[in-house]
């Protein structure tokens, strides 16, 4: 074989290989395109059936969704309807799912060896957000796979029952998931009563529960949060001060005003921020005093809070420009400068 002949063979075989690989890529692309169009059509069909609310038809849809792709599309369709359909429709979806032959299979899949099978089963079981699957899903909070744990956590949050709240708080106490993941699911009005009943078990749990109470934005949380401001744990105090700012209502203001005198700078800083967010005009004098606090963050937050309080706060900042404490004057001047640009743009 000479060089030219050899190179020809090389180029020829490379070309054949390239064409083969290109063909493979084209085939995969076509296959993927087809799968996507199928999925779009299926989701539209599921959405129509689920929105119709007939439990019998819904049960048929669940039973027919045998393969992974169909089940995923079904779960996604339920998710998309979650913010649109009324709760009663979801009850019907839940009843339809429970009446279908798929439910027993899904519950069996919760104990599957493959993590993704367990996660998918928990995902679909928990989508309608009914009380049905709570007992089966709760043990998955301790699953070795993080995806399964997170799916279980969101599923329990969606079920929104006292039993689900208990399971989530148990998970919080056991530290089986990052606390924030459980707090974000617990932080809703449906869980407030259960949370309040579990307060004072331990400071670490209290700090997390205080944050969940804040997220609930439920007025019933104000009294227990005010009590938590007296905690011996700094983290609990900070969480309570932040949460009181989220819960709102005038009952929170006196507690936050008292927190401005805390010995801990982080609590004072958080209380100042919360008062600004609440629009508590009554706090103007106290915040003005905080402008000369010994902690930088307290000064900065107090100045910002005064700006957020509108006219009375701006007047306080204008007075503070002449403050004998130059650092207080600096913070005030800074916020006034920001206010001036905002006012100019608004005008």
């Amino acid at each position, binding site marked *: *074989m000479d060089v030219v002949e050899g190179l020809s063979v090389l180029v020829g075989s490379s070309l054949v290989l390239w064409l083969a690989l290109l063909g493979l890529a084209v085939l995969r692309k076509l296959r993927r395109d087809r799968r996507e169009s199928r999925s779009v059509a299926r989701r539209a069909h599921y959405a129509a059936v689920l929105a119709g609310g007939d439990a019998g038809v819904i049960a048929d849809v669940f039973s027919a969704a045998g393969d992974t792709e169909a089940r995923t599309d079904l779960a996604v369709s339920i998710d998309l309807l979650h913010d649109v359909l009324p709760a009663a429709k979801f009850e019907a979806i839940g009843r339809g799912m429970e009446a279908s032959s798929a439910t027993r299979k899904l519950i069996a899949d919760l104990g599957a060896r493959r993590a*993704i099978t367990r996660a998918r089963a928990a995902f679909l079981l928990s989508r309608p957000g009914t009380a049905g699957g709570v007992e089966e899903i709760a043990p998955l909070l301790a699953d070795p796979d993080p995806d399964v744990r997170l799916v279980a956590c969101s599923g329990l949050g969606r079920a929104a029952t006292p039993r689900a709240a208990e399971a989530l708080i148990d998970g919080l106490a056991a530290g089986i998931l990052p606390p924030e993941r459980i707090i974000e699911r617990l932080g809703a009005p449906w869980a407030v009563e259960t949370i309040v009943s579990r307060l004072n078990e331990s400071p670490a749990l209290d700090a997390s529960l205080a944050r969940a109470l804040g997220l609930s934005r439920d007025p019933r949380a104000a009294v227990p949060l005010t009590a938590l401001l007296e905690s011996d744990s700094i983290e609990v105090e900070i969480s309570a001060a932040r949460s009181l700012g989220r819960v709102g209502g005038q009952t929170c203001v006196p507690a936050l005003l008292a927190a401005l005198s805390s010995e801990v700078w982080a609590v004072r800083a958080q209380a100042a921020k919360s008062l600004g967010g609440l629009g508590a005009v009554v706090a103007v004098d106290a915040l003005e005093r905080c402008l000369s606090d010994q902690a930088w963050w307290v000064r900065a937050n107090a100045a910002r809070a005064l700006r957020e309080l509108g006219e009375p706060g701006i007047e306080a900042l204008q007075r503070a420009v002449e403050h004998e404490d130059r650092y207080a004057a600096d913070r005030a001047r800074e916020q006034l400068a*920001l206010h001036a*640009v905002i006012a100019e743009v608004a005008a």
Partner: protein
Amino acid sequence: MMGPFEDFLHGFNVFMLAYVLLLQGIYTVLAISGWRAIEDYVRRRPVRDYRSVSESEMSIPVSILVPAYNEEPSIVASLRSLLESQFIEFEIVVINDGSKDGTLAALKDAFRLVEVGRVPRSNLPTQRVRAVYASPLEPRIVVIDKLNGGKADALNAGINHANFPLFCAIDGDSMLDAGALSRLVWEFQAEPETVAVGGIVRVVNGSEFEGGRLTKVRTPGNLLANLQIIEYLRAFLGGRVGWSKSGMLMIISGAFGLFRRDVCVEVGGYDPTTVGEDAELVLRLHRHQREQRKPCRITFFPDPICWTECPEDLGTLVRQRDRWQRGLIEMMVRHRDMLFRRRFGRIGSLAMPYFLVFELLGPTIECLGYTLFVIAVALGVIPLQFALAFLAIALTYGLVLSFLVILMEERAFRRYPGWADLMRLAICAVIENIGYRQLLALVRMRAWYTYARGNQHWGEMTRKGFGPLLPGGTVDAAGHPVLDPTADPVLAGEAPVEALGAPEILDAPRI
């Protein structure tokens, strides 16, 4: 009968054969591992609730650090694109690193910046910070104006002034996918021992923009840019996913990575004396966590995307690759004591030796191999059939690997949905293996020379930017309310910095 030179040629080519086979073997293992990881991700993706990460008040807030040096044409568009990120709580800390152009003025004009006092949360040494600015129009933007000290120094200043527990370092000429942050943060939220996560960097050349925002992803007309698309896909999908899966990820691109702020402060932040500060930091994090016997999860996540402009001319590409290789050399030289040390786990015993043999010495071995291979064939030391078979196998392997990453892309992400894009990439998969790789090997070999000369320069980069800017604030230089440079007691060092002792709890006071 062969003479000593022929003996040497024969011996070297046998060595090269073994070297190539070993390298291909490693690439195969990485590609298979990457493919499996991506398949696993594709299966898990539907059950992951990324939306709740982007909307939950309990998500870990992020400081996006954008070092800017002479970025006047693109900085405002970059920031406006970053502000589109779908994530509940983030701030953008722009560090103007002593730019000589109008970078700071452009920022002042667009966002009506006002000088403010801001206490640094850590004390990483940096060049002097001249002023800190906040935007009344966009509270999420903070601008730090400092004396020039290089990218690493700018990032350290950004870390000092960042408020949040996680920071994301991205280049001023890059833009993030809207959902990128929530996907990266998910990794920290699901597995708290995570220290750093890298995201994929993709080439944005040729794509369409509107108002500085990416509207349609397309492959570019420029050949060099298309070759880099294949190269990036191979590096990220065919390489880093595999390294990450094995717990041996040594590089998180400086263009896009998310880090735990407290750990980075503990290790001393970025090293301003190296041009490869991104990789050096990652290696130092591995080292520190292992020395402290702390968990160290440093991983790569292929879905959150950072779009970056790649060089379209050879000169800029050569300068860029020279810098990358110098950074690698500096990193390996500095941390040479980690090599083959079991104490550093797989990083010391597998990843670093790989980088030494195949990334550091590899280009030189490769260039020498090409030269001696041709000589050996010409002298008849290697039979022609064997030489052609060897070339055919090398080319086949390169083609298969390039197509594999194209298929991975198509399977999992579909960022280039058009048929024309597929054809362009398919053609470039060939060219990348014939000519482009060899050229880069030459450039990377030359980096030893620039390293030996002590070159610490980044080299000029030519950029087009992301299209026309969105309408921003009007210019009103005289009317800007500018404060006197604040002599805050903390900033002036007259009072203790209480904030430095602040507990780094995930939901620390949001100030």
